[in-house]
């Protein structure tokens, strides 16, 4: 390994002095210290802000990052780190952390109905099950709001004692004619209109009074003592319905479940091991659609690269004749599809291929009724066509560049040896072209494997497969399937979506690593 950091010692021609050492480094030092001062100030602020809301993870990360920055930029021994640190920090938070978070979620059932941890889910279930204790005394209450905007309950018990959020208050109270406390110093009392608009918050107000139960209100005017109708037994981790005697047992599925199979909501997040991965193979209703999406993803990526490369190459060959008239006009117009943002082009194609109103059916085909986007096979063809339109200019550019890099002597030699045009192309041009464009073709494959834009904007994944238990269409790629599982309508299953994400990652990384190794560009990169 040649060390370049100490690479003095080269004897050679005289060069003008590039750097005037002393003054520039003084100025640089001042800038550096000023920048680091700002970073440290921000760091301290960040730690304090995170500490204030009790987020220890963020506080720790910001603190550590600030200390690392100080060390890296003041130490004389670290050089490469000075250039790597900024990018690395973003990479750590928004890429590495995201990868690990996703990988961890892949082994859980997190999603709608399973978002909380168990203690919080239990708390929620108990609070929801609370009912007024029969014949318990009624309180007179007012809902007040402090300077931080959160609501509190100002309650007057039957004996006239006043409490605010459970704490007794004796001073600064304004009472109405009936002895009810209606205002307290430092707080604003909510009027009827506010009570209506903030109804959900009012209903959720709850002041625990220990063994007595909890003070709650339904209208913001009268309060009552309530007690959960479910009793929790911490030792057995069961919930018993006091009225019906039904017992709910905490199950491994992340629910309190009764013997008859009914369960209480919400559930909580539990570890499910490899269930999410196994599910696509064991769930018979899911298996068929998943396999077809899986295969189509490969077919789509492979055919996209093939078609785009073929058309790009044909055009590059056709327009690669020196002195041909209008060559530059062709070139600059042909790359236009690549320059237009692809989400716009994809949406334009959706409109053009529309079955009833689209330009293609109405004008080009004179009023035909071809279901371009609504027939499973035609839709597959349509997305490939749109992707060809979007992608061929890129391949055209690459092929043109690669063609021009082929040494002229080689072409000359082939001609002298009497090679015909086809032979010349098969045995000289194509092999050379493939060698220099292989890494980019692999990258294009990986890109199209996850080409969410085309699918989502052109067909939305449709037309839908009727037999699939989740909304899946015949043009869905794995990536749009993940999107639908994670964000599509009801029953979002983040754990399952994460497992699919992890799977895609492994496939794409595997293919790319294999391909890059084959082209040996990996070794060259490390030279």
């Amino acid at each position: 390994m040649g060390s370049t950091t100490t690479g003095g010692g080269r004897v050679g021609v005289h060069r003008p002095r590039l750097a005037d050492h002393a003054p520039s480094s003084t100025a640089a030092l001042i800038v550096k210290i000023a920048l680091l001062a700002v970073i440290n100030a921000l760091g301290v602020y960040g730690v304090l802000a995170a500490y204030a809301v009790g987020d220890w993870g963020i506080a720790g990360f910001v603190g550590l990052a600030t200390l690392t920055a100080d060390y890296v930029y003041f130490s004389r021994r670290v050089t490469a780190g000075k250039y790597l640190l900024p990018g690395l920090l973003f990479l750590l938070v928004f890429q590495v952390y995201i990868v690990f978070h996703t990988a961890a979620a892949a082994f859980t059932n997190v999603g709608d109905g399973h978002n909380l941890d168990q203690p919080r889910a239990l708390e929620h279930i108990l609070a929801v099950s609370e009912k007024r204790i029969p014949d318990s005394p009624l309180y007179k209450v007012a809902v007040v709001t402090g300077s931080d905007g959160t609501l509190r309950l100002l309650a007057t018990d039957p004996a006239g004692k006043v409490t605010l959020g459970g704490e007794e208050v004796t001073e600064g109270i304004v009472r109405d004619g009936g002895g009810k406390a209606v205002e307290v110093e430092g707080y604003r009392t909510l009027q009827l209109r506010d009570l209506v608009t903030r109804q959900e918050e009012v209903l959720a107000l709850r002041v625990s009074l220990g063994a007595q139960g909890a003070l709650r209100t339904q209208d913001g005017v009268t309060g009552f003592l309530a007690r959960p109708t479910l009793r929790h037994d911490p030792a057995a981790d069961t919930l018993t319905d006091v009225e019906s005697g039904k017992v709910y047992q905490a199950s491994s599925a992340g629910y309190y479940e009764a013997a008859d199979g009914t369960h209480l909501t919400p559930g909580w997040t539990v570890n499910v091991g490899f269930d999410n991965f196994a599910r696509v193979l064991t769930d018979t209703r899911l298996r068929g659609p998943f396999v077809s999406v899986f295969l189509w993803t490969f077919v789509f990526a492979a055919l996209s690269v093939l078609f785009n490369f073929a058309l790009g190459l044909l055009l590059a060959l056709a327009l690669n004749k020196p002195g041909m008239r209008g060559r530059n006009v062709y070139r600059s117009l042909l790359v236009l599809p690549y320059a237009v943002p692809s989400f716009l082009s994809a949406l334009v194609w959706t409109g053009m291929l529309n079955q009833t109103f689209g330009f293609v059916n109405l004008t080009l085909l004179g009023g035909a009724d071809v279901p371009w986007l609504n027939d499973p096979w035609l839709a597959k063809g349509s997305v490939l066509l749109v992707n060809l339109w979007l992608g061929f200019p890129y391949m055209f550019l690459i092929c043109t560049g690669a063609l021009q890099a082929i040494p002229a002597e080689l072409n000359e030699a082939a001609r002298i040896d009497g090679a015909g045009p086809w032979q010349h192309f098969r045995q000289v041009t194509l092999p050379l072209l493939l060698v220099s464009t292989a890494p980019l073709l692999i990258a294009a494959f990986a890109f199209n494997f996850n080409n969410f834009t085309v699918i989502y904007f052109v067909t939305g994944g449709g037309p839908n497969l009727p037999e699939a238990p989740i909304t899946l269409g015949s043009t869905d790629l794995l990536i749009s399937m993940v999107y639908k599982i994670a964000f599509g309508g009801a029953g979002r299953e983040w754990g399952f979506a994460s497992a699919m994400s992890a799977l895609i990652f492994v496939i794409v990384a595997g293919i790319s690593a294999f391909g890059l190794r084959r082209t040996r560009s990996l070794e060259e990169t490390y030279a």
Partner: protein
Amino acid sequence: MRAWFANTGWRHLVGLLALVFALFPLVFVISASVNPRGTLTASATLFDGASLDNYVKLFTTSTLPYTRWFTNTMIIAGATSVLTVLLAASAAYAFSRFRFRGRRLGMLGLLLVQMFPQVLGAVAIFLLMARIKGVFPDVGLGTQWGLVMVYLGGAMGVNTFLIKGFFDSIPHELDDAAKVDGATHTRVFFTIILRLGAPVLAVIGLLTFINTVNEFLVASIILQSPAKQTLAVGLYTLISERLSANWGVFAAGALIGAIPSVLLFRFLQRYIVSGLLRGSVKG
């Protein structure tokens, strides 16, 4: 005549056919954007009348914050591409010019991590941004700077590789000579490497800009209020609500939205091929 066709004529034939294929959607959009009725059905007839109604609607309809979407997109894409180039170029400089422990491993790690597209981590990104919002509301969920930060997470990765390939081809003798003359490594980076590497930096900046303008998924989950959204999210919502009725307005918006990318592309096109091929294949 036959000889002319075999030699040159077929080239023009292929070129013209490709031009028709490449340009007819663009002609269709231009025609739809000046169509006075502004529906998808009416747009099927090319250049059936000409009016600027759709453009006027685009900028005057109060429920349609097009100007905001446009400026948001430019700011977000501009900031992301400039910062991406800076982060990736300095990392590439470190990998190209310094030998340090963990260099090989670091590059392998980068290669691996960047193969995880952010789209796949959308859920985790949403949860993380919601958590950041709790501590730093100005850069958390729902803010444009938050979105830029998320994009910067993908700044290294493949960009670093392409730039490093290019930097490797800048002769080491140049930095050595400067160092003999007393230049620090910072000065070498800013005065020699960044200047000579301008072609590849232009390419990466351009591609990042276009990719950011295109990005839909992460933008749609982070920016929720319509006035903060980007063109991709806003225009998609516009025509997913009423595809046919909003078509003319959409076409006008799409044309204007495409202008910055097309101009940048025209400007930097000559660098693209050399930058990509030189960076990935070396020599």
